């Protein structure tokens, strides 16, 4: 008997006007694994995540979370499903009208999992797990550096102990050392929480550090997927070109034709 994937996507289509972004995506993410989707800019990686979260509505296809199709689900049921998720956004997306501790515990307070009087100490404990001192809790997001904002975003994503965590370009805009720190934290936190992780990135150093499995999205389809340690022997010219960052290759040729 095969295990039901935590996330199962079949024949997913999404377009904006005449621009087709997702053109029949099929993807399985198993429980406890860290799946990373790679692909060039504008290939629809973020759109795929937003479709899973219900922020965008696909035209066709199915998205199952723990065997339950979430497309067309009513608001209340979707809200229940979303309680399983945590997400680290590309720009951290911290609420700049709230101090750091309220950002970290926002989901817990919204779900009434902690009292307001206890929230600050919970936030400080979660900040410690991502390597930030207690005095950061009282600061505003605008007072933090890019790396610190990412770490607060990570703290917010794991505060609720989610079953599934999404990472949207977690290392974009960071220096290589801070990017590695964030990668280590992601691996550590995902392991600690015991979550299933789905990340999107085009940073290959990040992919090699955080991925158990990798899938490549190109022209709205998954063109290759497999274990991370097999990516260098994929026998796929698109994957080879992408992971080696070569200007020459089929992806560039397609761009020239267009």
């Amino acid at each position, binding site marked *: 008997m095969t295990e039901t994937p935590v996330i199962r996507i079949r024949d997913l289509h999404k377009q904006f006007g005449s621009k087709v972004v997702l053109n029949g995506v099929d993807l399985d993410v198993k429980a406890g694994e860290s799946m990373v989707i790679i692909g060039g800019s504008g290939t629809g990686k973020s759109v795929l995540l937003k479709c899973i979260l219900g922020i965008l509505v696909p035209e066709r296809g199915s998205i199952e979370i723990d065997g339950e199709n979430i497309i067309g689900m009513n*608001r209340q049921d979707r809200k229940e499903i979303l*309680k399983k998720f945590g997400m680290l956004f590309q720009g951290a997306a911290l609420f700049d009208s709230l101090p750091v501790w309220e950002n970290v515990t926002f989901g817990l307070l919204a779900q009434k999992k902690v009292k307001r009087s206890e929230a600050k100490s919970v936030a400080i404990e979660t900040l410690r797990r991502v390597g930030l001192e207690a005095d950061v809790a009282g600061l505003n997001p605008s007072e933090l550096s890019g790396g610190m904002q990412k770490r607060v975003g990570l703290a917010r994503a794991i505060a609720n102990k989610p079953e599934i965590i999404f990472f949207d370009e977690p290392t974009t805009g960071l220096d290589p050392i801070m990017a590695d720190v964030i990668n280590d934290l992601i691996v550590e936190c995902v392991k600690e929480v015991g979550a299933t992780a789905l990340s999107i990135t085009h940073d290959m150093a990040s992919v090699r550090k955080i991925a158990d499995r990798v899938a490549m999205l190109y022209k709205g389809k998954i063109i290759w997927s497999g274990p991370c340690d097999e990516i260098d022997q994929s026998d796929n010219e698109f994957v080879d070109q992408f992971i080696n960052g070569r200007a020459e290759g089929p992806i560039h040729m397609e761009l020239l034709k267009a």
Partner: protein
Amino acid sequence: MLLGLPVNRAFEHMNFLGIIGRVTLQFLAAAGRLGLFTAHAIIGIFSPPFYFRDLGKQMLAIGYYSLPVVGLTALFTGAALALNIYVGGSRFNAESVLPTIVVIGMVRELGPVLAGLIVAGRVSAAMAAELGTMRVTEQIDALVTLSTDPFKYLVTPRIVATTIMMPFLVIVADTIGVFGGFVIATDKLGFNPGIYVEKTVEFLEKIDVIASLTKAAVFGFILSLMGCYHGYNSKGGAQGVGVATTNAVVSACILILLSDYFITEMFFSS
């Protein structure tokens, strides 16, 4: 020949009709989106969860912090109104109508409309810019991932707070406006303070105050709705936020002036 016209003329006609059709469809689509947004906002007011803490913050930001600008505008408008009426009335030996016209003009019309326009410039713009920035920096998407309905969390408290606070601001504007007229009339134009107050109270009717407060609440709803609608649906980066802010203020001002006429017609046409 096509449609009884030379081919090139027929295509020009069809192009013109196409533009009309496209504009009409765009207008209807925008009206539909705004209608749904308004319905969503009204339903949100009466359905849980209720964010009382955020409602309180918004009431303070919208009501208390708008007091200085609304008060100053009303003070100088009341004073200028008194001077104008005195000069105009003196041509017909009718200077004595000054207190009556100042109070009716301020309470029925200038208080609510000026407060509405000033608050639209201050609050609609702030709402559109804040929500627009939250949209383009993915903060609104982040709310979804944190089990929070962004509409209920961001839009509903702003609309409720503005609709509640505008009548209070208009009461302040009416009072300060009448006071501005009083100061000029008694200090500069030689009116007797006791008689001025007596005439003001005598000619101010309950219906004037009710109309003023009704206008205030409607204007509050309109200006917050426009600020939230344009900010919440903004697209693109900084330019998109700028466009949303401009559209919010312009549409709020136009709708305030339009609804002012209809409310005045409703209360005083007979």
